[in-house]
C-alpha cells in the first residue's frame, strides 16, 4: 500500500472515445486505466497491464495500470469517468465544485482482480440501470 495523490482529468483518448459513445470499447478502456510513473510502478511492484486497487476516503476501485512519464512522481492519473468518480467526494466547500484533483489515495497491487464491467458496476453501486 503506497500513498499517492490522485489526479483526474481529460485525456485525448477519453475525449475521442466519448464521442464514439460511453459504452464503447475505446472509452471504457481509457477511463478504467490509471497512469503511474514507471519508477513508482517499480516501488509498487506491478507491471503495465496489471491491476491495482485505488482507495480514497470516499471509495475504492480496481483499475488497470499503465506507465507514463508524464505523471509526476507520487501521483496517479485517472481520466474522467465513472471509475474515477467512485474515488471522489461530494464536499464542495460552498463552491459547488467537488475535489477532482489532488486527493490522497492509497494504491496497492490487486492480483487476481480485474476492472469491473461498467454496466455491472453501475447496477451494483447505484441500485439500478440496464437498457433492454
Amino acid at each position: 500500500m503506497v500513498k499517492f495523490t490522485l489526479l483526474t482529468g481529460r485525456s485525448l483518448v477519453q475525449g475521442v472515445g466519448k464521442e464514439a459513445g460511453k459504452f464503447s470499447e475505446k472509452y471504457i478502456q481509457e477511463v478504467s486505466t490509471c497512469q503511474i510513473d514507471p519508477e513508482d510502478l517499480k516501488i509498487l511492484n506491478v507491471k503495465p497491464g496489471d491491476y491495482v486497487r485505488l482507495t480514497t476516503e470516499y471509495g475504492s476501485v480496481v483499475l488497470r495500470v499503465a506507465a507514463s512519464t508524464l505523471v509526476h512522481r507520487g501521483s496517479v492519473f485517472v481520466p474522467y469517468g465513472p471509475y474515477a468518480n467512485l474515488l471522489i467526494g461530494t464536499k464542495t466547500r460552498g463552491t459547488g465544485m467537488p475535489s477532482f484533483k489532488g486527493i490522497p489515495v492509497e494504491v496497492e497491487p490487486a492480483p487476481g482482480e480485474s476492472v469491473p464491467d461498467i454496466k455491472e458496476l453501475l447496477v451494483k453501486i447505484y441500485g439500478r440501470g440496464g437498457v433492454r
Partner: protein
Amino acid sequence: MKVINAVVCPCCGNLCDDNEVQVEDNKIVKVRTECAISSSKFLNYYKERNTKPLVRVDGQLKPTTLEDAIERVARMLVEAEYPLLYGWSLTSCEAQKKGVELAEEVGGVIDNTTTVCHGPSILGVQDLGDPTCTLGEVRARADLIIYWGCNPSSAHVRHMKRYSSLSKGRFRLPEQRKVVVVDVRKTPTARNANVFVQVKPNQDYELMTALKMLLQNEEIEEQEVAGVPIEQIEELAELMRGCEFGVLFYGLGLTMSEGREKNIDAALTLVRELNKWTKFAIMPMRGHYNVTGANQVLTWQTGYPYAVDFSRGYPRFEPGDTTAVDVLSRGYNDATLVVASDPVANFPKDAVKHLCSEPLAVIDPHISLTAFMADVVIPSAFIGIEEEGTAYRMDGVPLILKKVVEPPEGILSDVQILDLILKRVRELKRGR
C-alpha cells in the same frame, strides 16, 4: 455528393468553424479537419446512438412512444417539489432558453456543467472581474502565452495552432512567441513549451502569490515555493513583466484543486497586477462546445450564469446550495431532468447515488451512462450535425452551428422536445 464548408465543430470550447464536411445520401462520408476529436465526432456520432424513446419497465428500458415519454417527463416535473434540470452545455442556446423557461415554470433549479468545471472561475470573476480578449487578439498580438493547469494538446487540440502559441497573427509569428506551461505533470502541451514549471499539486495559489509579490518588488525569503526554485519563479515573473502582450490560459488544474475559486482569485489578481506593467489577459479553457453559451443565456435571462433556483418564483444563485452536486448530495431534489450531459459519468459517487434514487429523465442522442440509469429517455438530434443552433466560443464569440444531414425519422431536436414538455407541463398545471 455535397461539400459543406465553414462547418462549426460541436465538440470543445474552441468551436473551430473551418471544417469541411462531405455528405452523400444524407450521410457524412468525409471530414476535412485537423482534429482527431472533431473527426471522431463527425464520423462516429451516430454509432451508439439511441433512436427510440425509452421507459423503464421492470428494471429494463423498453421502447415507448414519444407521446408517452413526453407525458411521463412532464408529469415527473409537475409532481416534483424541487426538480433539478441539469446539463445544457452540449446543446444549443435555443434549447438552453427553453430550459430556463421550463425551470421557471416548474419552480425547479437549473444548472449546467459549469458547476463542476469552471464554476470557480466564474466565482473568481464575480470577485474581481475579467481582463480578457477574443482569441483573435491573442493570435494577432500575444508574445507570451502561459498555459496553467490546462493541457490544450489533449483537450483543446487545435487551440495552439489556430489561436495561440503556434498560430500566425498579423503582428506576431509563432517564433516570436514564448510559451510557458505550468502544471503538476509534464503534459503533452509541456513538451512544446519554451519553459515548463512543475508546480506541486494543490500549491498553485502559493506560486501565483509568489509571482505577484515579485512583480510588486517584494522580497521572498523561501528558497522554493510550491516546489519551484525561487530563481525559476523570478525568471517567470520577469518574462511576464517584460512581454508586450501576455495571455494566461488556465483550466481545471486550477478550478479543481484545493483552493478552487481562490486559485482563480489569485490568477485574476496576478493578471490585474501585470496590467500595471504591460497588456495581459486571462482566459479559461472552456470544455464543452456550448458551456459558454449556457452561461451567457442563463445570465441574460436570469442574471446568473449557472445554478439558478426558481423555487421562490424568482432567480436565486447560491453556490454551495443551488449547485447540482450539493443539491444531489444533500438530497434536495426529488426529480431530475438531464439534457445533453452525463452526470453519472462526471459526478462523485454519492451525488450519483441520489440522482439514481429519484425519478430521472434524460434527453440525449446517446445512451449515455445517465440514460442507462434513467426512468425515461428521449432521443434527440445532434446539434451542429442534424440540427442548427447557436453556440458561444470560450471567448464569447457566438457562431451558428449548421445542419449538414437530416436526423433519423422520428428524432426531434432538443428545442422541439422541450417545447412539447413545456406545453404539456402547462396543460397539467392548468388542469390541476
